[in-house]
């Protein structure tokens, strides 16, 4: 069920997973997504909170022990696989359309 939910990742999901390739706390993710996407993608705090919960539930990310009261997360192997699959999908989309777009 949970796997089915993330068959294709939305932009926001993709960037959240991308920013978690290094361990990072929830609050930092918002800023990280913004800088990773050159200010293009904004993740609202509510969306981030929900997505982190969903990712954790389906094993894409895990909580790691941290000092202080903030909760830190990092991507798991399952999450990496999902990220890579999505990357491959996006890449193939770009490759497939490259020639056609150039003609325009």
């Amino acid at each position, binding site marked *: 069920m949970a796997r089915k939910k993330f068959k294709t990742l939305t932009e926001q999901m993709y960037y959240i997973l991308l920013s978690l390739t290094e361990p990072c706390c929830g609050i930092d993710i918002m800023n990280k997504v913004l800088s990773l996407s050159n200010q293009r993608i904004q993740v*609202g*705090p509510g*969306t981030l909170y*929900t*997505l982190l919960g969903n990712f954790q539930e389906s094993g894409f990310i895990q909580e790691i022990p941290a000092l202080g009261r903030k909760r830190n997360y990092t991507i798991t192997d399952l999450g990496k696989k999902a990220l890579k699959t999505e990357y491959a999908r996006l890449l193939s989309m770009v490759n497939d359309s490259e020639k056609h777009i150039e003609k325009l």
Partner: protein
Amino acid sequence: MLDIMRNKNKIKRFMSFQLHELEAVKEYLEEMSLKGWMIEKIKFIGNGYNSNFIFRSGAYFTFKKIKPQKLYFSVDSYGIPANSFGSPYNSLNEFIDYCTNAGWKYICHDQLIYIFCSSSPNTIPIQTDDNIKLEFTKKSEIKFNLINFIFLLLTCSPFLFNVSFSDYITSNTLILSSILITIATFFCIYNILNFGIWYKKAKKSLEIGSNIKYKTYKSVKTKNISTKILTSLILLFIAYMFVYEVLFKRLFIPCFIIFLLTLITIYICSKLFISKKEKFISIATTSICSIFIIGIIISNSNFINNHEIISGRTPNSLSFRFLRHDEVPINVDDFGINQYTYKDTQANYSKSIAAEILECNDKSFSDIKCEVQDHYITYSVFHSKYQWVLDHYLSDKLSDNTGEFSKTYDTFWSADEVYYNEKENAYIMVYNDSIVLFSGDINYNKNNIRFIESQLLQI
């Protein structure tokens, strides 16, 4: 009517809304802040799942006085566990931290609804994924509406049991309650349709990549007026039932004890269980059980029949008016039956705007323990101004005893139509505006019939 003034610095307002109408709540809060009132607290009626008796009514908002200013609000529903892992840094704190970091000031929350405020219009929205928002709204709305529907059914269940047409039509309480229940059912269905149509439109606009159109404050405001009227009506009706039916018929104490026990159990459950599911199951079970117990008490004590139970022999603990043997219009003595026997008289009288009925049962016994029955008469007089009520009552009575009553012309009764049941020695007489049922082991001679008619038809 439901708005409560507290003091000059604080006001309380009631607003009814569904989960897809939160944008309207947002508009409302912004409007209030422009008028110089800042939201301070939100409180739903009840404890969420059974947050209302018939339909989910809405929430109370407490405002405090501020300098009028333009503020931006975020009102959304999130499924955040109030306290997870038992750590001081729980999910709620984490969620609020995220929002604070994005520039939103946490104001208050109740149940699933969280209210944040910001002074800048450019603050990043708390929810940026419309799909997540829509799915969550759908899930919660369906859950709420299903629970409302179950509660609605449970509310009317005592009225659905054991109610014959004559019980129903002669009781103002039953007529009124069925009207209210019908309105509430329509309201419930309207709410579900209202949400369903909106959801379908929202889903479509998401598919084609445009923005979801939310309900405006104006449209919700109109709905609010009707909700408030209905809520007040239901509250008034409950007050009426409480005073008239429960207090007068001495059901107050058992019902109050059960109500108190229910509240205590719900309180203990909400403290005892941490998981939402367990909480819900325990609270729902308690509520359903107590509703059934109260329903059984009520339906077993003539509550819904609006009857005055009149007993001539043993004081009935539930009755509040007694009638002596010689107070009923006709008793067994009237037919020259032995004066020295022991008597048992029971009579019900009930009247509503549509009809009235008098039912009487008089027996005489030849022993003091009232075991050996000597003679009996049973009769009822049903009176109504409306022809369809009379027709319905008659066909009800005839079909109750299918094939036993047959039309007869060979009698002394002066009625328009007479039906006779030979086995029971019973008659049904149809008069201009009333129907009389009479049975008993008496002699139906001309004098007796004249006497019965003269006594019963003047009621």
